[in-house]
Every structure is written in structure tokens, then in C-alpha cells.
């Protein structure tokens, strides 16, 4: 973890509820895709934890969904504004397990960390991106430019495959495609469905990124704990990425 001052160099709307922000500063604290940063906002007590979408020389890109007052205020931040940011939080994805044909599955605001993950692979990973409807779709072009084979699924059928990321996964299986490992991030119900269908039924091991309301974001407060097969873990510090083999579903 590193604390630093970052300068906003870009802050633009991608969809009605999703924004992209590029922050310039020392990104040496970020060591793996799937990690997150924690941003201090004036007038708000807790920082805002947001996953890393991309890292380049001297800048980090995040994609955030407007969910409350804090993220709403962020949409009005202008370029040049400085932010106090903790970087390199969480474990991130372990890419050494990917094998020849990794599968990346992202849902909604869980998609951003998969972008940097996809960029790390040179062998054209398959990426399933799930959205509610066509107007919420973002970053498909960017994934394709990064060399990924992208399949879009929308719940209302307004873009790509009609249905969930699981429906898209079944289409791929139907085409006879095989996968060596998977990486996923998305809402809780989607993660559970991915666990059931991709890990348990299809027998593919993977790594899943979890989300929880956090206090500190760096392992001190025990606010975001989770029970696993190997004891109590902190989502912010021991996670947010957990292996399918260690996950215990509670709720």
C-alpha cells in the first residue's frame, strides 16, 4: 500500500450511471490486476474504495458507478483537482494459474478490474461482459483492442446475447469451447451463479473478487470480514480475490 496525491487528468461519463476517472501520480504501489484504490473525498469520513481498471506509466484509471453522495460529487470533479489516494490495496488476481484459455466474466460495475487482467494476457482471453441493458454497456471496444474475444450479454436482450453471463457461458460451452481457469468480478448474486455453474457444474477453477462495505480498506478494522474454508479473511486485505476452493457461501 502507498499513500499519495493524484491529479485528475480525465473524468468523463461512459453510461447514464458509470464514469471513468484517470488519476496521475505514483502508481508503483499497484502490483496486480484486481487490486483497488481508496480515495479520500472532502466532506466524507470514509474513503471510497474503487477497483483499478487500468494502470499506465504514471496514471491509474478507475470506472465508478454513481451510487451515493460521494460518487455523485466525484462526477463534478474537474481535471487538475488533487486527491489523496491509497493505492495497491488488496491481493489482486494471480495470473500464473490462467493456463492457455482463461475466461474472464464481469458484471456491471465489476467489469473494470477485468480490463487490466485482460491486458496482462497475450493469448486473447475470452471475456463475457454482462449488463442490464444496451444503454449500460461500456468498454467493449477497449477489451477488443486489448486482444480479448468479447461476448456481451444483456438481461433485457437489447445488446448481445439475451440473458445473463451464465447464459453466455453456456453458449460458449455449446460451441465446444474449453477453459483452463476463470477470473470474475460482479454483484453477489452473479458471483454465486458463476460459482455454481462454472466451478461446480462445469468443473473450472477460478478466482472471484468480492465486494463489501469497508471501513479502512487496508486490514485494520475488521469491517469487511468473510468466513472461508480456511478461516476468517478480510476482503480488503486477504482479498478481494478468493479462490473457488476456499469460498464458503453464507447467505
Amino acid at each position, binding site marked *: 500500500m502507498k499513500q499519495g496525491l493524484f491529479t485528475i487528468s480525465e473524468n468523463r461519463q461512459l453510461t447514464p450511471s458509470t464514469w471513468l476517472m484517470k488519476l496521475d501520480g505514483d502508481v508503483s504501489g499497484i502490483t496486480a490486476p484486481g487490486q483497488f484504490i481508496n480515495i479520500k473525498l472532502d466532506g466524507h469520513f470514509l474513503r471510497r474504495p474503487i477497483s483499478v481498471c487500468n494502470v499506465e506509466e504514471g496514471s491509474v484509471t478507475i470506472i465508478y458507478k454513481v451510487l451515493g453522495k460521494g460518487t455523485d460529487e466525484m462526477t463534478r470533479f474537474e481535471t487538475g483537482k488533487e486527491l489523496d489516494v491509497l493505492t495497491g490495496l488488496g491481493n489482486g488476481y494471480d495470473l500464473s494459474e490462467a493456463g492457455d484459455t482463461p475466461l474472464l466474466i464481469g458484471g456491471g460495475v465489476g467489469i473494470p478490474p477485468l480490463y487490466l487482467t485482460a491486458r496482462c494476457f497475450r493469448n486473447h482471453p475470452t471475456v463475457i461482459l454482462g449488463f442490464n441493458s444496451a444503454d449500460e454497456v461500456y468498454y467493449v471496444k477497449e477489451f477488443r483492442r486489448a486482444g480479448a474475444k468479447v461476448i456481451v450479454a444483456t438481461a433485457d436482450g437489447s445488446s448481445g446475447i439475451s440473458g445473463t453471463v451464465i447464459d453466455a457461458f453456456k453458449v460458449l460451452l455449446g460451441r465446444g469451447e474449453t477453459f483452463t481457469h476463470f477470473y470474475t468480478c460482479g454483484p453477489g448474486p452473479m458471483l454465486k451463479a458463476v460459482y455454481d455453474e462454472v466451478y461446480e457444474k462445469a468443473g473450472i477453477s477460478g478466482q472471484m473478487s468480492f465486494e463489501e462495505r469497508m*471501513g479502512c480498506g487496508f486490514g*485494520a478494522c475488521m469491517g469487511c470480514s468473510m468466513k472461508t474454508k480456511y478461516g476468517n479473511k478480510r476482503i480488503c486485505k486477504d482479498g478481494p480475490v478468493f479462490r473457488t476452493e476456499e469460498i464458503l457461501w453464507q447467505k
Partner: protein
Amino acid sequence: MAEVRRVDINDAMPDTRVNLCGITLDNPVIPASGTFGFGYEFAELYDINCLGTFSFKGTTLDPRFGNDTPRIAECPAGMLNSVGLQNPGVNDVIREELPKLAQVFHKPVMANVSGFSADEYAEVVKRLDRSSVSDMIGWYEINISCPNVHGGGMSFGTDPHMAASVVKAVRWMTDKPLIIKLSPNVTDITEIAKACETEGADGVSLINTLMGMRIDLRTKRPVLANVTGGLSGPAVFPVALRMVYQTAKAVKIPVIGMGGVSSADDVLEMMMAGAAAVEVGAANLTDPYASRDIVRDLPAAMKKYGIKRLSGSADQAKNL
């Protein structure tokens, strides 16, 4: 001829040392239990030996997961938590956490202890006190004020007789200083403090969190899975200061002040209200360097307000 230098006494470095129950601290800044783990997480960020000491994560007899999540809710100038005493249990603390801490911290540490019966508090203190790592412990901070557990914690801290029963049980188990951590969720905190003093407590620390609640308007459900939680952060500072002031006047034993402390100025204000030392809690969670920065800023803040030394400031508070 040798040059004679005139030394201006006002330029001398202010003396930040304080005495806490017979042990001298380099400064009065103590990260509070539950916001600093077992120290080594923060030792990766800075040398934690700059602190007066710190109070480690509340330890119970058995390992505890704590409450369901969500356990955190943001508030204006503060936060609610309903962690519910997650900790690895006293045996793991002795076997794993404290040996790990010994690598990075070389001052006496404050051992925070919690329980669900007077006997449990006593047993935890007994095991720590008779363990191979007991030399690391300077003080016990007995938490009778956790608002997030049922059938223990705060129920001991809201009734003077129950508070006394815990102090009595624990007092037998150790010769080290016993500091009792008090709840603000009472009508008169001085009554509880006096009951602890009578049973042989060496100090009291206050305040633990104030009980609160938030509801998510979108889901129409409480934000916290536990429904209620404890409020901390700058929002509670004036309440904490008032209770420290009242308690310091009511008892002869030292009072550790805490509740929303987030700057060197806050430390000085707490000490002017009668605190012998000051704990820093929620500030550590929003800024991992908060306690280090408070220690660093303290001498300059003392100079600014013309304070030459901190020891004895608690006595002066009685004249407020």
C-alpha cells in the same frame, strides 16, 4: 574567548512525556483497540515505536468471527461499526500475534481484553499474564463497553455493580495496571468510573463508541446487518471531552481520553479536560498515518499554545 550562548528557555523542545499508571510514555498518543490490529499491519507503513504505546485488538477467550456484514456505515463526521469483537482468541494471540508484534514494537503494549462473563475476563487476563509474552504487556485495558455483542461487553459497563464484579475478578489475576474502558451509553459515567476505582482499577479509558443506527433509503433496511452499531469519529469528540472532564474530576486514578481525536490539537484539548493520555481510534482507519502524524505535530502544537510539558496537565484540569 569562548562564546557564551544564551539559551532561550522558550525554544527548548516541549516535553511530551506522560506517566500512565507508573510507566513513562514518550508521548500520550495511543492508537485505540480495534483500529490498529496487532500493530504489525501499520509497522509496514512506519516505525510504530514513535507511538506512546497502542492498545491491541480486543481479545476474548475463544476465537470470534463477530457479526454478519455489512458492519460499517458512514455518518457525518464519523462512522458506525458493528464488528462484534472479531479476534483469533487469546491462545492464538499469545502464540502468533504477540510474537509477530515483538519483531516490530519494543515498548510495553496495552492488552485489550473482552468477555461475556466476569470469569471469562479473568481467564483471558490470567492466560496473558502467565504466558511467555507477558513481559510485552504494560497495561490491561478491560473493555466493558462493546456495544455490538449480546450478553456481555457493554452490559458490564452500564451497571456499576456489574462493572465492579469484572474489576474484582480481573484484579486477582495480575499485578499489572488495570485500565477499565467505559461506555458512554449511560446516564452518569462517573458512577461507573467510581465503582471501578473502588475495586482497585488503576485507570479508566473513555469513551467507547456511542450507539447509533442508519437506514438505507433505497433498500429500506438498516445499513448494518446488526441493525445498530457504535459511532466514532470527530462527531463524538465533544461528547467524549465532556465525559473525560466529568470523570477526571470524579476519580483520582488516571483517565485516558478518546473519542474522535484526530489531531495534535485534539490531544491537547483532551489533556486539558483531564486526560493523562489519549487514544486515537477512527482516525487510523481513514488515514493510516494519522497516529504518526499526531505524534509528529504534537511538539509544535504545544509550542503554539505555550505548553512546556504534558505531565501533570490532568491535575490542572480540575481547576477548569
